[in-house]
């Protein structure tokens, strides 16, 4: 597009043949106006008809895409035009992903606060029909089962990762474990629940639903996450530290316990916290293995145990005589759940950022 600068010799050589930066904003505004105008002036005669802002936005984006492409093609040529269109598409992809996140957070907070009160955290659902009641029994159950699952998973997962990093290098068993840990990460959570149910049915008789079975199901999901993250962290420990320890005559197991593990501790803690956050939100395995109840149950070895995700699920699935009360409780439960999981996630990231060794991008 050199003829532009040729016709006007005083124009900036480097800026010529390019869309000026403010053009994007102008075109975007133009598209919005066009789209809005289309829906306002060419609307059906129906007086009930209202302009749907979402549709206006979608049409505006499409109009903008076309106009932007054409403008760029005329001024800058086809290659640059394609490049601009792709940039728009890629940015759009991110915006699209943010829509459900924002909508979800917005609704959960909005609808969740209605029952996010003291009762919700102190009462159980015993003898509650309609409004009132709370999810304290469910939170108790979640804490008990998650703790049990952590107690089972962390030693197994940590030791397994120690084997993989410190002992198993190059061995067939280590390769096998690595592969199957990866496969295990993909086990559907409901299958883990069915497994725990089958296991405890065979031990304690058919139809058994107890807290410990729920914890076992969660462990099946948690172990592979712990192994993966701890393995990664142990591999980051510099080999010089191990060698220095060996040079001082420290046996291998003490080197691992006193040198390797403390160095990797922050990372391992982060991994465990993320794993806890992950299994805390699991519903399906607990639905199968631990059942549900309206009462407090502090004993994981007998009777069913409620959990927070299941509380939300049942409040939604089995809306009683006053559906609003059940839905309000469901949203409050969802809000509590999201808050717990977010806090765990943020704390985990904070630990990483503060303690982790710094390395490239």
């Amino acid at each position, binding site marked *: 597009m050199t003829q532009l600068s040729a016709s006007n010799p005083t124009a900036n050589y480097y800026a010529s043949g390019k869309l000026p930066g403010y053009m994007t904003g102008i075109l975007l505004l133009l598209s919005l106006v066009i789209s809005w105008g289309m829906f306002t002036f060419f609307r059906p005669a129906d007086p009930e008809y209202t302009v749907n802002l979402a549709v206006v936005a979608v049409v505006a984006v499409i109009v903008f895409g076309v106009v932007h492409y054409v403008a760029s093609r005329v001024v800058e040529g086809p290659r640059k035009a394609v490049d601009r269109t*792709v*940039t728009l598409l*890629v940015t759009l*992809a*991110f915006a*699209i*992903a943010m829509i459900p996140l924002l*909508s*979800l957070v917005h609704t*959960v907070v909005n609808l969740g606060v209605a029952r996010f009160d003291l009762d919700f955290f102190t009462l159980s659902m015993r003898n509650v029909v309609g409004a009132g009641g709370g999810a304290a029994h469910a939170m108790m159950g979640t804490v008990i089962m998650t703790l049990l699952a952590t107690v089972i998973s962390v*030693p197994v997962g940590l*030791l*397994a990762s120690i*084997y993989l990093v*410190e*002992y198993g*290098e*190059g061995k067939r*068993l280590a390769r096998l*474990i690595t592969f199957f840990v*990866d*496969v295990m990460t*993909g*086990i*559907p959570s*409901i*299958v883990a629940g*069915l*497994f725990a149910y*089958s296991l405890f049915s*065979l031990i304690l008789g058919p139809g058994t639903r107890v807290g410990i079975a729920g914890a076992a199901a969660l462990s*099946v999901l948690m172990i*592979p996450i712990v*192994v993966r993250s701890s393995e990664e962290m142990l*591999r980051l*420990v510099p*080999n010089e530290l*191990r060698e220095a320890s*060996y040079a001082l005559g420290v046996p291998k*197991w*003490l080197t691992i316990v006193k040198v390797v593990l403390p160095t990797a501790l922050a990372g391992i803690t982060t991994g465990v916290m993320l794993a806890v956050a*992950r299994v805390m*939100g699991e*519903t*399906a395995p607990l*639905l*199968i293995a631990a059942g*549900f109840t309206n009462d407090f149950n502090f004993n994981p070895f007998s009777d069913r145990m409620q959990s927070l*995700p*299941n509380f*939300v*699920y049942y409040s*939604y*699935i089995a809306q009683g005589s006053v559906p609003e009360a059940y*839905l309000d409780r469901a949203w409050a439960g*969802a809000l509590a*759940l*999201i808050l717990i*999981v977010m806090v765990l*996630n943020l704390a985990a990231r904070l630990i990483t950022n503060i303690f982790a060794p710094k390395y490239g991008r």
Partner: protein
Amino acid sequence: MSQSAKPRPGTLTAKQRPADRIFSGSARGAGITILITLAAVSAFLLVEGYPALVTPPEEISILDNQSFVVYVTPLVFGTLWAAALALLMALPVSIGIALFISHYAPRKIAVLLGYAVDLLAAVPSVVYGLWGGVILAPGIRPLYMWFEENLGFLPFFAGPTSGTGRTILTAAIVLAVMVLPIITAVSREVFLQTPRLYEEAALALGATRWEMVRSVVLPVGRGGIISAAMLGLGRALGETLAVAMVLSATGVITFNLISSTNPSTIAANVALSFPEAYGLNINVLIASGLILFAITLVVNSIARWVINLRKDFSGAN
């Protein structure tokens, strides 16, 4: 990373103390425990699922006098169909997001944007189910009606539009949102591992940013994208609650995306039927769970195999 304890040939082996043996033994034992657990999962599902396959269907109430195969076929179809739809929607968007974060967004905020996408992965599935059933399903119904009016000639949008909006497409959208962060995370890592020099060489030859991405980043990341998609597929196949809470299922095989008759998925069916199930019905559900386990096992194994093939490039490890 690669400099961890690698035994060099000719090194002296340290004296084995009892404590050493106990420690290494328990570490090895923990590793073997994992293998045993995985074997136990398959074994228990086989043992508990087997009776459902050999008992005559008349004695199992949930089968409704049909054979197990007839019962489970729509579920398998629904599982694959919903997961495929979810992947179809999530994959292009995820690759877009991954590219946006790795190559388009300003460096300083790219990390933060990455966190925002990761937050999507942290939301529990039951919350997605609640959101999908209460907000998304009624909210998206006008779009389905528009589809029926304007695209009704396609079998997918034949209608009649479901009155609640709780269709297989809604479930697939929720699934797509849930697998999005997984696919994004893996492909983002892969894109970031593109050799810097290749990128700069492409730009130096006069390529635009898109031409650089197309000719360097995408070819290098192809294996990673495939395995990311497979991992996402595995997650979508096994997702339970979101589908159970969003979909109103009737147990038919249909490609109609917006009507009120929809196939259920294995996982959702187990979750919905299990609390009331008794006797052999439980075995039927466990047998269907075994099928789901087998499907996800195959998908995940292929994904991992692809990742391991290209270990040098893949950031998923």
